[in-house]
């Protein structure tokens, strides 16, 4: 049975804002993030120049999109809009198609039916302005590479073939590292960091690319509390600078905290809209197969231990 | 992995290696012959070349032999010592007829600039009896290709020794008379060998004078002493050609139909194939201590330490088995 709880031992989740009696949520709320050590975080670099207004446009538009591997359709009926600067959470059990959808937005898998438009272009054409954050444990911990070198990789596309990174690139990379709170670890080997810290480095790499759209594949999986706070803080500053974000996650509470809109998937789109609407018991039940319960007006997911 | 710790390990590694080398570095081997600056430095490729060179050159000549006894001359990689010897040599004695395919590269690498003597000069070279069809078109050696085992006919050995004498006289004219004298006494011994062999072979009943050897190395011997060459186990002048199934059947058939009584193996090749074919055909296999000296002489103290004793051994063995 899929687990959809935050990394607390408790097996129920309550929506934020619950009064008294509930155990203090382990997640950091936006106002708490400011008080955390990441308070000195500089504004994250963004794809929009200082004087350029974040265009009141659309970051990603899904138009009844369906995605297939060969003959088998793995995801269908994805329909909705993510405005520029907004944050979209992808929710669903394992195998629901969250990663597939992210790959489709990246242009790595073709759209079989309907279309996906990214920054007013086809997905493959928009890659210059899109940055992807994979899960940290997909990467080799023994690789002899430093944190700083990895973050600098985010600049490669901007630097282009055959050219060396310049001073400005290094400055941008450093700023991105500062945004995730790991600037002092720049010279350390990637493998010497904890899982959560490695995830933050990968986020910094994406931020260094100054994207207009940021895609994160389950960034909170197995991440410790300190790193989770840092990730949330960084994501908040990224959002402030006008970059749109798509985050897939199991964690409903986090999804509610960070995103304006939620897309609930399970082989097909079940809901797409503001959290209050999409994270209601009905859609959750449809996605998770009947394990959603309402308790005291709040939507709750129960899992077996 | 903390980097500061890495440097000491690297330093220790290199230091350890240096210490090992320090142990190796010895005084270098003695240079040249005696103190006599005029003594020619001779490099001989095969065991036969070295043996003839010592016979004709006598004590005053320093001969460096490249191929050791028992080593296959068809395939050889020159060592640094070989190349060094070549670099400093006044005279190089080689067999020719494509036997030493590795020699050209060795000569150009070492920078040899002395006199080169090819022992096969003026020797009548046998070619494959089947005629031109067998010739490989991509031969590098063109017309020189043929049977290189010229030494098994003592008359050829005389020519080879004469060529060596010419070379020595060119390089060291002062001692030419001495070399000539050595050549004459050695030629007399070669004539004696020739007579002995002919006489011995004639004691074999004529219907049993059939020879089967490991590879095509006794062509000149067979021609000189009028034996019948039934075939060889590896039908090639080269020792490592692959044996095909058909070739095995061929030779077994020939052995049976010709009434051959023995199969002879060679000192520098493993006897396994000869033994397989011998048992297949039901004939005796001559191997081990008795094996023939075909491509190379034997080590010092063995029956084949010099040309004269090796050829005698071959004759005695062949006659003993076939008679």
């Amino acid at each position, binding site marked *: 049975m899929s687990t959809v709880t935050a990394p607390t031992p408790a097996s129920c989740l309550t929506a934020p804002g619950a009064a008294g009696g509930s155990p203090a949520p382990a997640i950091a709320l936006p106002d708490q993030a400011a008080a955390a050590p990441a308070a000195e975080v500089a504004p994250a670099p963004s794809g929009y120049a200082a004087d350029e207004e974040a265009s009141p446009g659309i970051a990603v538009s899904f138009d009844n999109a369906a995605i297939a591997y060969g003959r088998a359709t793995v995801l269908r009926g994805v329909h909705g809009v993510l405005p520029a600067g907004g944050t979209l959470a992808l929710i669903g059990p394992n195998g629901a198609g969250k990663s597939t959808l992210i790959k489709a937005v990246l242009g790595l898998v073709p759209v079989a039916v309907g279309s996906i438009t990214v920054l007013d272009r086809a997905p493959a054409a928009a890659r210059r302005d899109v940055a992807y954050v994979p899960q940290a444990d997909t990467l080799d911990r023994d690789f002899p590479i430093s944190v700083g070198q990895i973050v600098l990789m985010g600049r490669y596309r901007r630097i282009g073939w*055959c050219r060396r990174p310049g001073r400005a690139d290094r*400055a941008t990379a450093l700023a991105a590292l500062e945004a995730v709170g790991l600037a*002092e670890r720049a010279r350390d080997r990637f493998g010497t960091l904890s899982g959560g810290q490695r995830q933050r480095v990968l986020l910094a790499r994406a931020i260094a690319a100054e994207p207009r759209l940021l895609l994160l594949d389950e960034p909170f999986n197995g991440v410790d509390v300190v790193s989770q706070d840092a990730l949330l803080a960084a994501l908040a500053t990224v959002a402030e600078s006008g970059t749109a974000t798509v985050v897939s996650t199991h964690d409903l509470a986090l999804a509610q905290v960070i995103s304006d809109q939620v897309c609930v998937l399970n082989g097909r789109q079940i809901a797409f809209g503001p959290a209050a609407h999409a994270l209601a018991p009905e859609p959750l039940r449809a996605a998770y197969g009947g394990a959603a319960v309402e308790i005291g007006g709040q939507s709750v997911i129960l899992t077996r231990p | 992995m903390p980097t500061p710790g890495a440097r000491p390990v690297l330093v220790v*590694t290199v230091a*350890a290696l240096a210490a090992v080398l320090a142990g190796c570095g010895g005084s270098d081997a003695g240079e040249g012959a005696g103190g006599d600056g005029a003594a020619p430095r001779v490099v001989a490729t095969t065991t036969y070349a070295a043996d003839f060179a010592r016979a004709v050159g006598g004590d005053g000549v320093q001969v460096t032999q490249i191929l050791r006894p028992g080593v296959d001359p068809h395939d050889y990689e020159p060592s640094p010592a070989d*190349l060094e010897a070549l670099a400093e040599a006044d005279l190089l004695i080689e067999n020719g007829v494509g036997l030493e395919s590795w020699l050209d590269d060795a000569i150009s690498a070492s920078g040899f600039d002395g006199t080169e003597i090819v022992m096969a000069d003026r020797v009548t070279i046998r070619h494959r009896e089947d005629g031109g069809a067998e010739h490989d078109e991509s031969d590098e050696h063109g017309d020189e290709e043929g049977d290189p085992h010229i030494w098994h006919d003592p008359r050829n050995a005389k020519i080879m020794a004469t060529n060596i004498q010419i070379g020595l006289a060119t390089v060291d004219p002062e001692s030419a008379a001495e070399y000539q004298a050595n050549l004459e006494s050695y030629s007399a011994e070669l004539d004696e060998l020739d007579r002995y062999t002919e006489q011995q072979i004639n004691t074999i009943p004529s219907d049993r004078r059939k020879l089967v050897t490991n590879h095509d190395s006794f062509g000149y011997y067979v021609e000189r002493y009028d034996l019948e060459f039934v075939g060889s186990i590896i039908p090639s002048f080269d020792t490592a050609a692959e044996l095909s199934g058909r070739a095995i059947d061929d030779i077994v058939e020939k052995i049976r139909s010709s009434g051959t009584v023995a199969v002879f193996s060679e000192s520098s090749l493993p006897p396994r194939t000869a033994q397989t074919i011998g048992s297949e055909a039901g004939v005796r296999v001559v191997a081990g201590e008795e094996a023939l000296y075909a491509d190379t002489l034997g080590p010092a103290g063995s029956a084949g330490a010099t040309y004269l004793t090796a050829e005698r051994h071959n004759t005695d063995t062949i006659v003993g088995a076939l008679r």
Partner: protein
Amino acid sequence: MTDLLITPFEHPFMTRALIEIVILGALSAAVGVLVMLRRLAFLTDALTHAVFPGVVVGFMIGGTDGIVPGALLVAGLAAAGFTALASTRRISEDAAMAMLLTGCFAVGVVLVSRRESYTADLTGFLFGRLLTVNTTDITVTAVTAAVAGTVLLLARKELLLRAFDPQGAHAAGYPVWLLDLVLNLVIAMVVVAAVRAVGTVLVIALVVIPAAAARLLTGRLTSVLVVAVLLGPLSGWLGLVISYDASVHHDVRLAAGAAVVLVLVSIYGLVLAGSALRSWAARSRAARRRTRAGSGGAEGPGRPRAVGGPRELSREAV
């Protein structure tokens, strides 16, 4: 002792061998770092077997001058083939590579065995003839090093990204198949350049060992590269010296190419022993610290140095 390290090279043939093995050693080691990062040792080995028929056919058609073009052609085809193979899902990649490499090798043996001077040619191809390299061979090696080196230098950031995070490289829009093909072709070029000197069997050692030893010594990429590129030529030099000394002073035959490989393996063994000792020492230090401090926090050997934020991201590799 310095006498031993220098005097052999008064002979021109030793000097030529030294120049060849130094260039080859440096080139192989540099490529070897990437081979290690990408775990392509088996593919490199497969390429050394696959080029063999190219070497034979080249030799049959054009003599010694024909070896390099023949080998290059087949190596290029093989590299392209292996790249394509990596993207198929139907057959297991290493099984398919094993079939291809043994098949090619067998073709080469069949071709060689039809010639008269069978074994001489065969051992030359397999083990090289380091002591008889001529200036043409050295030129070929130098040109290969220049071309391969330039390619690697220009594409180093992209090759690094692909090695570390192929999915990320793909997501960023890089043509991963093209990067892989380029690297495989560079490896093929190194194999071809090495054929004359150390032969196809030993080139794998020149490629793989320096990088492996360097990785044991350091976790920083630039350092790995520097150490590997120093170790390769150093082993070549020492191998030549040992082969010379054994032959000339001790009358022991020790083929030059094999001596180089033995030096490489010995260095690796020493480094391995050294680093095992070091981690054992670090562990026992940590254990002693723990028992002394009672239940104090465990400080592993990998503790990072937190020296206040760097003002600028350091100029490390790339």
